[in-house]
């Protein structure tokens, strides 16, 4: 062949061309016809974006269906830290300054330093837009949207956030929500390698319940996020919506709490603490009155009717993320100041004399005593060469069992504790055993995170505890259990520790004759927006759970019952003074005072009460740290709650309000105000005082200026004249008109009816002087 012919060379060129075409055809065939749907899948992956649309969380309701927590929409200004990084330093600073200016102009005062702080706050992922201002007006959203080029990486989002119509009320029970942390996200969604399927998927910027019911009922409250599938172009700009799955709101959770009781409880607790603050206790120590708690449970079923912890906080501060600075400010102070702790379940105290019920019952069941066994109380009890005293060495004389409880004779119980030790071969660790039957030493099971179980010390525990100490703190023979330990235990001191809710539940167990319920905060879970009275709306109901049960013979029950009843009624009862003026005809009160001694500090004042004795529906406890002896500070709190729930103080709420107002005034007068707490928030105390339809003020009492004008009108007749009013504290501003009883009375002349303006309580900020007309009106009209 002639390889040098142009024709051949042209042919070679043609063959090359043909080969190249063949290659293109082959490749095209392979890509378009042979290849699987891989390309389609990949194309869909990069073309379609699924944007999660958070579902509104379920509401939290009270036992009567009133709203404690719901949702509202909020416009949130966010900055994408990613986009911000692309800006030059001066552009960035200029943009932030302009943003701060616009925010301030629109009514959301903002400083550049504040924005910078948010941007640098480690709680935010740098991959997600960071909220820098919340609740901005619609006009600002429009403004920023129109000037997107001037505000690069700034966006305004419409978010559904938590709304608290009752303010900080029941904040510790509700809890708060916050951005999900990476560990929480991993727990719910798994890792990238091992993803978990979650019917309510979370995104890195999802909110999750952090504490309280928000946390324990997260799975109910959280809705199913919606999904908006959008097509985006190569630059990530959304071009059109191709699919929309609407979010499904979360289920509502109905609590056992009663908003009214809760409010009264919180107000009484706050008022008492703030009232004792700065005063001196019986033993001359300065009462700090900084912290306390109160719980009311229903012995019938363990339902928590009210749960208050002081100081408290405003959960709305956590909406859209609380700043790290503010959070540190909240939790950073002394432990006593930390408002995030729920002391009702997470505070550990020596139950003090409230524990004597257990000791006494243990002694009865172990056969050490009978219901009438007495002991000569000379004020002092000696164990070996150690002397144990009554408070102030007060000698109660001959005390049979019921009276030993009524007067809270320490000596009587020292004696029992000693006997438990001496006869330990026969009775074993009888006190501890009984304590556990009453629920001590284990959480009560309430559906809140952070509940502690307390300590019921016994020889084994003591040894273990001693061994856990570092060697230099292991005192010689500190691992041995002595008679003194038993004696201390018998009066609820020593190493014994309990939470307030435990003590309340122990008393509920007592009045239940040994049936101990798991404490419960939730009645039922409802469909979103469901009506609690509609059975069809119920997703699930939570029935009472009996945690443990033992048989309590009447022979053992009756003397103890008598002793506890005497606490509030007997002339020597340790709490009688606080229940003066309280009509026990239909609402008998069993009670027990307690003092938890804290070395070097003022005593913790404890009072636990159960009522009505006829059919106990409320077991209430108040524990006020560093506030005084026995029931000095705690008694009035429970008294106030019972006054309200018994209907005796329909005006109790008003009285509490008045106190709050007085407090406010006091604060204004230079008293130290709690800096880290939200207590008497103006406007949040809008309790409805009963309009005085038939004014209880009888003609005879209209002449008096005293606030206890209704005392003479009780239908039950059990009035205790001359008592300084039945309010939580016999303060000048209290007024315990008995409204319910007045309904049976004929309406008096119109002139005695107070004008509406004076019946609506003044705002909390109102000073006593402006409130004056309220109390003086009867005089004027009379």
């Amino acid at each position, binding site marked *: 062949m002639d*390889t*040098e012919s*142009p*024709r051949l*060379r*042209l042919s*070679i*060129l*043609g063959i*090359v*061309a043909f080969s*190249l*075409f063949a*290659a*293109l*055809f082959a*490749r*095209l*065939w392979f*890509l*378009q*016809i042979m*290849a699987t749907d*891989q*390309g*389609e899948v*990949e*194309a869909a992956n*990069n*073309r379609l974006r699924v944007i999660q649309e958070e579902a509104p969380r379920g509401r939290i309701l009270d036992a009567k269906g009133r709203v404690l927590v719901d949702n509202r929409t909020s416009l949130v200004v966010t900055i994408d830290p990613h986009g911000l990084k692309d800006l030059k330093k001066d552009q960035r600073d200029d943009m932030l300054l302009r943003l701060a200016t616009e925010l301030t102009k629109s009514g959301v005062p903002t400083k550049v330093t504040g924005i910078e702080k948010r941007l640098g706050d480690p709680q935010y992922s740098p991959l997600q837009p960071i909220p820098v201002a919340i609740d901005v007006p619609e006009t600002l959203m429009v403004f920023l949207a129109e000037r997107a080029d001037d505000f690069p990486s700034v966006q305004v989002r419409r978010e559904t956030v938590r709304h608290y119509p009752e303010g900080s009320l029941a904040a510790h029970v509700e809890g708060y929500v916050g951005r999900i942390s990476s560990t929480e996200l991993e727990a719910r969604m798994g890792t990238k390698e091992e993803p978990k399927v979650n019917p309510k998927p979370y995104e890195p910027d999802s909110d999750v319940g952090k504490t309280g019911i928000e946390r324990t009922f997260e799975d109910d409250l959280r809705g199913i996020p919606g999904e908006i599938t959008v*097509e*985006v*172009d*190569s*630059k990530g700009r959304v*071009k059109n919506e191709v699919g929309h799955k609407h979010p499904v709101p979360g289920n509502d959770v109905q609590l056992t709490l009663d908003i009214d009781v809760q409010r009264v409880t919180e107000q009484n607790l706050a008022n008492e603490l703030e009232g004792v603050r700065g005063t001196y206790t019986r033993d001359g120590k300065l009462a700090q009155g900084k912290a306390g708690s109160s719980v009311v449970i229903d012995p019938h079923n363990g339902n928590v009717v009210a749960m208050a912890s002081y100081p408290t906080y405003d959960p709305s501060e956590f909406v859209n993320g609380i700043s790290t600075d503010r959070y540190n400010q909240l939790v950073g102070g002394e432990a006593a100041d930390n408002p995030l702790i729920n002391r009702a379940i997470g505070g550990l105290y020596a139950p003090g004399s409230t524990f004597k019920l257990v000791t006494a019952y243990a002694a009865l069941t172990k056969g050490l005593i009978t219901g009438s066994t007495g002991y000569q109380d000379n004020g002092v009890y000696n164990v070996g060469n150690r002397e144990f005293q009554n408070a102030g060495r007060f000698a109660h004389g001959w005390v049979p069992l019921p009276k030993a409880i009524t007067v809270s004779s320490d000596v009587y119980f020292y004696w029992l504790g000693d006997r438990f030790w001496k006869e330990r071969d026969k009775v074993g660790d009888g006190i501890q055993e009984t304590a556990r039957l009453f629920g001590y030493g284990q959480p009560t099971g309430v559906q809140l995170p952070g509940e502690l179980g307390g300590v019921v010390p016994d020889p084994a525990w003591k040894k273990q505890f001693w061994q856990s100490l570092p060697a230099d703190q292991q005192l010689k023979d500190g691992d041995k259990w002595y008679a003194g330990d038993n004696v201390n235990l018998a009066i609820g001191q020593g190493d014994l520790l309990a939470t307030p809710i435990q003590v309340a539940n122990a008393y509920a167990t007592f009045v239940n004759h040994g049936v101990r319920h798991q404490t419960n905060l939730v009645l039922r879970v409802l469909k979103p927006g469901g009506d609690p009275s509609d059975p069809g709306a119920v997703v699930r109901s939570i029935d009472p759970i009996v945690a443990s049960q033992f048989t309590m013979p009447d022979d053992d029950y009756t003397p103890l019952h008598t002793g506890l009843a005497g606490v509030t009624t007997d002339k020597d009862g340790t709490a009688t003074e606080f229940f003066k003026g309280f009509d026990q005809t239909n609402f008998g009160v069993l009670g027990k005072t307690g003092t938890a001694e804290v070395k070097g500090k003022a005593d913790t004042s404890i009072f636990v009460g159960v009522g009505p004795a006829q059919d106990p529906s409320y077991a209430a406890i108040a524990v006020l740290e560093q506030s005084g002896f026995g029931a000095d500070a705690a008694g009035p709190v429970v008294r106030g709650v019972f006054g309200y729930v018994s209907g005796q103080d329909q005006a109790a709420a008003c009285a509490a309000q008045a106190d709050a107002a007085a407090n406010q005034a006091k604060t204004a007068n230079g008293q130290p105000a709690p800096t880290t707490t939200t207590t008497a928030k103006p406007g949040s105390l809008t309790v409805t005082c009963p309009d005085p339809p038939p004014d209880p003020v009888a003609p005879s009492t209209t002449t008096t200026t005293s606030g206890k004008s209704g005392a003479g009108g009780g239908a039950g007749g059990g009035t205790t004249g001359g008592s300084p009013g039945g309010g939580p504290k016999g303060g000048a501003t209290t007024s315990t008109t008995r409204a319910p009883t007045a309904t049976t009375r004929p309406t008096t002349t119109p002139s005695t009816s107070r004008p509406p303006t004076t019946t609506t309580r003044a705002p909390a900020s109102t000073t006593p002087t402006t409130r004056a007309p309220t109390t003086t009106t009867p005089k004027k009209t009379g």
Partner: protein
Amino acid sequence: MATATAHDTSRRDPSSPWRHLDPVLVVCTLAVAALGTLMVFSATKGNGDAADTEFVKKQALFMVLGVGVMIVVALIDYRRFQDYAYFFYGGACFVLFLVVSPLGKSSKGAQAWFQLGPFQLQPSEFSKLALILGLAAMLAKWRGDIDLKRLGFALLLAGLPMGLIMLQPDLGTALVYVAIVLAMFCIAMVPGRYLLALTVVGVLGTVGVLHSNVLKEYQKDRLTVFLDANKASSGAAYNLNQSIITISRGKLTGDGLFQGKQTQLRYVPEQQTDFIFTVVGEELGFAGAATFLALMAVIIWRIWRAAALARDQFGQLVCVGVMAMFIFQLFESVGMTMGIMPVTGIPLPFMSYGGSTTLACFAAVGLVLNVHMRRFR
């Protein structure tokens, strides 16, 4: 039958070159150009309510101008071009020099354009034709008697514009020149051993360029990414991946005109120019893309045929130069979108948006038609 009639007439009146026009080449060229305009529209109309017609209007204008240029080029006897070949060549080199001077406009990392009002002129497109003419004139003069010295001259002639283009730098266009030169050398009867040596030098040169600093890092990245698809982190790999995904979505019949998901959301970069084949692939599917390739194959075939029928070596060399230019551009531009060629910016003849390339391509076809219809005189 029309063709047959034309042939009959030509026999009767051989003095009229128009009688010898190749209608197949003309029809295929116009068909491809029309398809290209449509594709440019699809790639640039955007997905707003009102279609963006700026690009397609310009492209249609270029097409009309291109047909005009084609006719003008075909009208003038190609032997007149032979006479002025060095003039074209010299002019082209001068313009290429100007474009790398401060007069030129830099865009996308290469200084390859002049800004003329709303239009950008890319002289390297036209200088391809100038090189083809110049080289054809020189090689034709030697009538196949090429020794090492002459080869050196020819290489110098080819090397000057290529060097200027590497100054821009634009490796893709330079490679087109390499293909043109090799094909023309082949047909000009450069001895086989020289061709082999040149090929080796060309390959080594390309490798050398890739390892030198002539190209910017990202340009090298683009060129080499098709060899290593796992280089996924780079933007070049992303683009290549998007391109392959887009084409493979087309399947047999495609998404339909203007319906390409990837195309309409602009996932592929430069989809109206270098990557326009992805639009064909996605919206028209295998059926459309294969038809396009078939049309191009017919065009190449007709050019090859013109080369084979050419009455002189100059004409044959011009046709082969044009054929090499089209083949290389097509193979590179289409192959790159399918991941079998390096990613480099070369327009797809008659398809890619751009005035310079469209006019140059029509002019090139004009040259071929010119040679073909004057094959008898």
